[in-house]
């Protein structure tokens, strides 16, 4: 286990060191980051199969554009955690602020607490599992991937949704434009079971409801103008 103490080293040194593992002949497998103190842009742009554990809470964009790395935050995360993630796993043991997993293309984001508004906004293939609740406008314009919520969802879930799949166990305050409840088929239960297991979530797939796009807004139709 390698340790980087942000009381002694700065952000550039942290990220440069972790990013350098992508081209190292033998990457250091395990890293620990001390004293994050809410710093922004921690552990961004990583591209190696390494484990990084941040001991404390982080600011904006922690684990941004992550590839391959497994990053765990033993605290809460600020806005845009794991934004545009490509692959790997990011686990937030506390809560996550706005835009968690925004525009993510792949990988798994697990939030063990609650996620604020716009969770999974414009997601493009990432899988997100939130153990708690999510805020309003989550999965807005979500294109691909899966958003699983063990708690409740706020207003306007899945507004202007494309092909992302949304699974909610609790209550949905309201659905956004063109988002509707859909049939839960066997393949969805199977997918959900896998995601719940990988996210360490204690829940049964049968307890969830599935939401997706009604696809009525995919091509502009003047008769749908009131939906915008």
């Amino acid at each position, binding site marked *: 286990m390698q340790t980087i103490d942000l009381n002694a080293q700065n*952000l*550039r040194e942290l*990220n*440069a060191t972790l*990013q350098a593992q992508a081209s190292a002949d033998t990457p250091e497998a395990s890293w620990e980051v001390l004293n994050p103190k809410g710093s*922004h*842009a921690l552990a*961004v*742009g990583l*591209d190696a199969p390494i484990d990084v554990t941040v001991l404390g809470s982080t*600011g*904006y*964009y922690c684990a*941004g*554009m992550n*590839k391959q790395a497994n990053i765990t935050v033993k605290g809460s995360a600020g*806005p*845009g955690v794991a*934004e*545009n993630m*490509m692959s790997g796993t990011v686990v937030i043991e506390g809560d996550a602020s*706005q*835009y968690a997993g*925004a*525009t993510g*293309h792949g990988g798994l984001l697990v939030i063990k607490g609650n996620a604020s508004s*716009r969770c999974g*906004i*414009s997601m*493009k*293939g990432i899988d997100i599992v939130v153990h708690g609740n999510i805020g309003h406008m989550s999965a*807005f*314009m979500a*294109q*691909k991937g899966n958003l699983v919520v063990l708690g409740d969802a706020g207003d306007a879930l899945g507004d*202007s949704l*494309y*092909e992302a799949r949304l699974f909610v166990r609790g209550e949905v305050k309201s659905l956004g434009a063109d988002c509707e409840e859909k049939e839960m088929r066997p393949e969805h239960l199977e997918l959900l079971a896998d995601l719940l297991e990988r996210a360490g979530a204690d829940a049964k797939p049968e307890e969830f409801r599935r939401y997706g796009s009604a696809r009525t807004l*995919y*091509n*502009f139709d*003047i008769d749908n103008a009131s939906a915008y």
Partner: protein
Amino acid sequence: MKDEKMTKIPQTMPRQSWTFSNDTNSEIRRAAATGIYDIRGGGAKRKVPHFDDLLFLGASMSRYPLEGYREKCGTGVVLGTRFAKKPIELDIPITIAGMSFGSLSGPAKEALGRGASMAGTSTTTGDGGMTEEERGHSTKLVYQYLPSRYGMNPDDLRRADAIEIVVGQGAKPGGGGMLLGQKITERVAGMRDLPEGIDQRSACRHPDWTGPDDLEIKILELREITGWEKPIYIKVGGARPYFDTTLAVKAGADVVVLDGMQGGTAATQDVFIEHVGQPTLACIRPAVQALQDLGMHRKVQLVVSGGIRTGADVAKALALGADAVSIGTAALVALGDNDPQWEEEYQALGSTTGAYDDWHEGQDPAGITTQDPDLMARLDPIAAGRRLRNYLSVLTLECQTLARACGHNHVHNLEPEDLCALTVEAAAMAGVPLAGTSWIPGKSGY
């Protein structure tokens, strides 16, 4: 008393209404028939004060000209000197503006890369990500970071030469975009993670930041991901140029790209293009003033776009304080857009040469704004790239000619004192005296 000799009473000529012109009435009829607003490509077509309303004074008793073809007049520019470890060095102060693959065909993107590289300048991606055609043929490529984040990935971010965060564009400050389903082919859809054939919306604001304070942190993230190597541009539409420039500098930009309302778009509502934003001419001086007030003029570079057509336009923009200009529509024309050779086909589409702007429909006879394989094949990227190179050369030569005439050995030495304005409006916007006077409206006197 009636003239007995007059056999026919003279008629007043039929008088067309200025308010309800034939053009206006045709739009009313189109709207009534379809129930939907008009969508088109390009920038504002209305006549607005522009660079044509300015003139260079040239050398005289108090200015000493340089000899054309003999005495050197530099054209190089370095963009991104504020924070980036690797600023972009260009041979000419004219860059190619961001235009998306999807909106443009692959051969068109390749041609832009070829032409720009031969001329020693940069080209820019657009919504939809980076294509191999463009990266492979562009020695200097600016990667746009857009609200949609289509195709965004850290690998392309790192293989770009600069990053341009798009906050807005001149054709539609405050607006997003729509690429209609007929252009969403399998390849375009794949790059954008969307199903084929659906209308694809480009969001009007970024999904994970709001305002300049957040943007400062976003820029920190992008710099950390790219090792602080890449210049970070911020592109804004010509809305509130003084404050937008100020805030872009505050957020940490290396370069501010300012796009006036004549700047083009792939597709948006005509009402948006024609009625939102300010003319390019009106935007430059407030932006330069903002940089000067911050002590950042020439430290944060200013790139101006929107309606640049000639070397005179380039020279005037530089004289007003820009470090470089960017061209989009003119570059497409140089490639072959709206060329008279396709007149018959333009007419079949209900348009004519020079007016064709239904780029979103994917039926471009010139093969530039289309994804149709047969139409795309009409554009030879090598020949089109050469045409663009030639055009860029002419712009540069013209700009040098004017700079020499004003006594400058580098185009960046052009200054507002080299200019006068033909109209009161242009004098006020550009902050230069009305021709024949020393009057700058709003500054000197009243």
